[in-house]
């Protein structure tokens, strides 16, 4: 008796989920349709702008030949590696700066100066130092995305209320237990903001470093497609970068929601 009921409610909740996805994607869909219409009607004289359908076709071609996955794997690998190194360095240094006002007094002017340097400017230096290898992308990524992670962590640690420090002392927690059980979890919100911003930067920096430095991955594929006058492929690669960016962001958000239960989020 209950099975038609269940399948009905299942179908209802599925259609509701689909509707929600449709709602969120509506901006993208409208833009794609408008783009297709502009191309079809020849409204703009843009020989180098392919229609979405051309791009989709190129995307499928590249994906089925396996080239796309190879390039994407290289870029994602470099992104994750650089981001991971920046995460470890940024969290450790950021925590030290957050805890010690002496360290902060000495280091924060340097941090404020270094983080204004454009990371791409490190490409020529990195070329000489590490040559044409994935290490070049990693150097550039770390140089760029260590800063938001470091600053997020420092702010997170500094933002811990005096009451939390009192609590640790009143409960007679040791130094290590205090850092592990109170300081780091309390700072995790700030750390996670830094990690998210850092992840977005890392992908962009990987692609850029590949375009002007190490000739590999999606960045170099974009250059190749442009030079060989294949705008459909060029856009297919750009779309790939977008998809990867969204996926990496979703992954970091999922990680942060697992690690930090949100007091203000209620179902």
């Amino acid at each position: 008796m209950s099975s038609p009921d269940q399948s009905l409610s299942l179908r209802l909740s599925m259609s509701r989920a689909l509707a929600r996805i449709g709602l969120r994607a509506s901006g993208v869909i409208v833009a794609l349709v408008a783009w297709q219409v502009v191309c079809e009607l020849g409204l703009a004289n843009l020989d180098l702008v392919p229609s979405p359908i051309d791009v989709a076709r190129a995307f499928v071609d590249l994906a089925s030949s396996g080239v796309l996955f190879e390039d994407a794997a290289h870029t994602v690998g470099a992104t994750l590696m650089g981001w991971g190194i920046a995460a470890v360095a940024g969290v450790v240094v950021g925590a030290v700066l957050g805890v010690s006002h002496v360290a902060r007094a000495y280091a924060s002017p340097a941090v404020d100066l270094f983080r204004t340097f454009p990371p791409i400017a490190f490409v020529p230096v990195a070329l000489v130092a590490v040559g044409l290898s994935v290490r070049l992308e990693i150097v550039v990524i770390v140089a760029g995305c260590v800063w938001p992670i470091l600053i997020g962590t420092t702010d997170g640690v500094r933002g811990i209320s005096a009451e939390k420090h009192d609590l640790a002392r009143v409960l007679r927690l040791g130094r290590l237990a205090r850092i592990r059980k109170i300081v780091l979890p309390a700072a995790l919100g700030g750390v996670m903001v830094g990690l998210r911003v850092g992840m977005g930067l890392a992908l962009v920096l990987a692609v850029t470093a590949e375009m002007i430095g190490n000739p590999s991955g999606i960045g170099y594929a974009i250059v190749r497609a442009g030079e060989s006058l294949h705008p459909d492929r060029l856009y297919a690669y750009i779309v790939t970068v977008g998809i990867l960016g969204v996926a990496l962001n979703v992954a970091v958000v999922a990680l942060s929601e697992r690690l930090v239960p949100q007091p203000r989020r209620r179902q």
Partner: protein
Amino acid sequence: MLRSVTTMTQDDRASQDGIGPARHATVYECREVSVVYRTHRDEAHTVLDGVTFDCQSGEVLTFVGPSGVGKTTLLRLLSGLIKPTSGSVCFEGEPVRRTPQGVVLVFQDYASALLSWRTVGRNVALPLEGRMSKREIDKRVDDALSQVNLGDWKNEYPWRLSGGMQQRVQIARALASDAQVLLMDEPFASIDAITRAKLQDLLLEVRRRTGLTVIYITHDIDEAIYLSDRVFVLSGRPASMQEEVEIDVPTPRSQVETRELPEFLDARRRLHAALRAEYSSEGAGQAP
């Protein structure tokens, strides 16, 4: 259960040593305690001046005073969070340097005293971790939560609980860690009157069952009388002990009858008089 065993051994030891039952042992001794804060313009700001009192094991001692008088400062001294500028604060005969073993401070602001990323059960377990086996911790957490009637909320996050329930979690955390002394800083001040009455009764109940010593801070005179064996009035600028009132109100106490007893009303009259004297002398002091 656990606690009654501890109390018994203490009693035994005390009677063997010939110093009488343990509940008359002095827990805290404060002698001529003064606290001077430095303001941001580096001026000296004396908050407490020559505060002297003893607290015996098993009693409920309450300090009443207007806000800003230095009540929180006094509890921070007792819990070792700050040191006196002069005078001495001793716990069981030793000067307090850090929070003594067996002393737990219950904060007024329950929201920041509980860790939002830990469940209720794991909040209660926090002071026990690394000090005993997982099974022992589990047993104590369950026991403490059921003492404050929160057994069903173990796996919930504290921010999903009402204020009164969160305050009960703090009390459970103290009970689980075998606290012998609870220092409570206006613990029920931001809780509605009906829930507050329930929490007061819970505290009296726990205290009767476990023989806890409680040093309690409030600005509510009725609450002070209802809970306490002795009440001190803290007033003046800088604050000093103005009045000590022994509360002869019989136990067990009840919210309605106790508050109508002549002993209760008498204590109430004396405490109000002491606090009123402070206001009028303050007014006189400020007159040009």
